[in-house]
């Protein structure tokens, strides 16, 4: 009977740390999930932006070698992600399929011109850069006109910035909520030790010496919590990999890595600072103040 006592006590102490770790893990998990969302929302908007197409309509008499040269120049230029040459025949075939009518037979000739479809990198898809690029493209002698959906570009840009703003505000709010949740959990666990902290001071321990084990322990639990939530995130990521495929692409792993490190850093930082402030608070209080 006597032998069981310390064991029971240890188990209870372990359980109280366990519950603190579980709540830290859950909060960090939510945090990581949201971080993943925010980082990929960026990717998603890039994905949408990079699908905005420019069509450079070419003069009818341009030689194939000039077209190839233009395509090469475009491919080498910084804003351009990809180009695709569409000759007259392909364009006619495409239109014929779309219309479901043999317009060439009807007209007796092919009225369409060859063109190059240009896809831009996301950072060059803002309205002002597009306006500059349009002028640049028109300078090439092969180009007859530049065609793109101005309204669509504006609409995308407007909505993406709105969503971006919303996500930033929301994530700052979440960061605040999560930090105070972890902070409270830690404060309660330090509060339960307030008399011990007071006694430690009375027997000649310096404040730094008293703080150290509290901070080390809490950083350990912060790391454990972060690793648990990272593992959960990885599990979710792997499970729904196929569903995410379009959005995440290859850079998904890079994003995941950033989120993992961020969660770990937050786990350490939040538990460190919270413990620091909580222990300091009780170091400053006198014995009779500990009862209120």
């Amino acid at each position: 009977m006597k032998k069981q006592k310390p064991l029971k006590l240890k188990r209870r102490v372990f359980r109280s740390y366990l519950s603190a770790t579980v709540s830290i893990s859950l909060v960090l998990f939510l945090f990581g999930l949201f971080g993943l969302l925010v980082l990929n929302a960026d990717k998603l908007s890039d994905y949408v932006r990079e699908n905005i197409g420019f069509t450079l309509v070419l003069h009818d008499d341009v030689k194939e070698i000039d077209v190839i040269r233009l395509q090469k120049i475009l491919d080498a230029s910084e804003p351009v992600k990809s180009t695709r040459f569409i000759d007259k025949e392909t364009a006619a075939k495409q239109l014929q399929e779309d219309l479901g009518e043999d317009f060439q037979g009807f007209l007796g000739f092919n009225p369409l011109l060859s063109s190059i479809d240009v896809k831009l990198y996301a950072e060059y898809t803002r309205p002002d850069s597009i306006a500059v690029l349009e002028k640049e493209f028109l300078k090439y002698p092969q180009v007859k006109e530049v065609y793109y959906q101005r309204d669509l570009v504006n609409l995308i840009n407007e909505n993406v910035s709105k969503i971006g703003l919303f996500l930033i505000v929301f994530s700052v709010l979440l960061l605040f909520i999560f930090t105070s949740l972890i902070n409270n959990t830690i404060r309660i666990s330090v509060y339960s030790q307030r008399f011990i902290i007071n006694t430690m001071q009375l027997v000649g321990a310096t404040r730094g010496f008293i703080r150290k084990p509290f901070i080390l322990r809490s950083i350990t639990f912060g790391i454990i919590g972060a690793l648990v939530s990272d593992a959960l995130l990885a599990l979710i990521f792997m499970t729904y990999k196929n569903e995410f495929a379009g959005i995440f692409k290859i850079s998904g792993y890079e994003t995941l890595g950033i989120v993992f490190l961020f969660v770990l850093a937050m786990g350490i930082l939040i538990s460190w600072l919270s413990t620091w402030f909580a222990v300091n608070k009780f170091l400053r209080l006198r014995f009779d103040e500990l009862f209120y």
Partner: protein
Amino acid sequence: MEDRNIISIRKADIYQREALILANVNLDIEKGSFVYLIGRVGSGKTSLIKTLNAEIPLVNGEVTVAGFKLSDISQREIPFLRRKIGVVFQDFKLLTDRNVHDNLAFVLQATGWKQTKAIEDRIDDMLELVAMRDKLKVMPHELSGGEQQHVVIARALLNDPDVILADEPTGNLDPETSQDLLRIFLELNERGKTIVMATHDYPLVRQFPARTLICEHKQVKESPDNVEEIDFMELLEM
């Protein structure tokens, strides 16, 4: 002259929060002396001891303890003052989350002891002195009041302090254990330690007479030389 006194108090007012507990205290305690501090419950014995330990901030006057001036002591210096004083607390104040050994080890580590062997030897010696070596791995809540008191004395002695402040150390003990405890204090006193002991265990004071200070009517007074002349009955009245 100054050096002979380990504790020196001049014109000190002692407050517990806003309440004035002791006014205009003037007192010298010589190195190596044994002093009783007696008085009714609430007469300011504990407050005086807490002031000497810098637990209660000094408001007015000059107090010097083991070379530290308490009127302008900084927060950083307080731990070092407390290393010069061994305090035996009325309510023990053991670290309830660890066993006897770890309680003592904490104090040694906190006060700069690094070598494991030296720490273990010191703990052994001190527990031997209070006859508690067999309780090394026991948690404080598993000890009786008297046993906890012994551990607290062992803890107070770890850093070989010049002065021991004991706040009602026999308050929770039976007469026999009280006498054992006082014998430990007397033995320490013989080895040159200054002992200040607050108590209202008057039979004990009568049995082992020494210099006695009386806390009464917000004053600390020197008792008559002859202990027999102290009106203990008057002090006992609530």
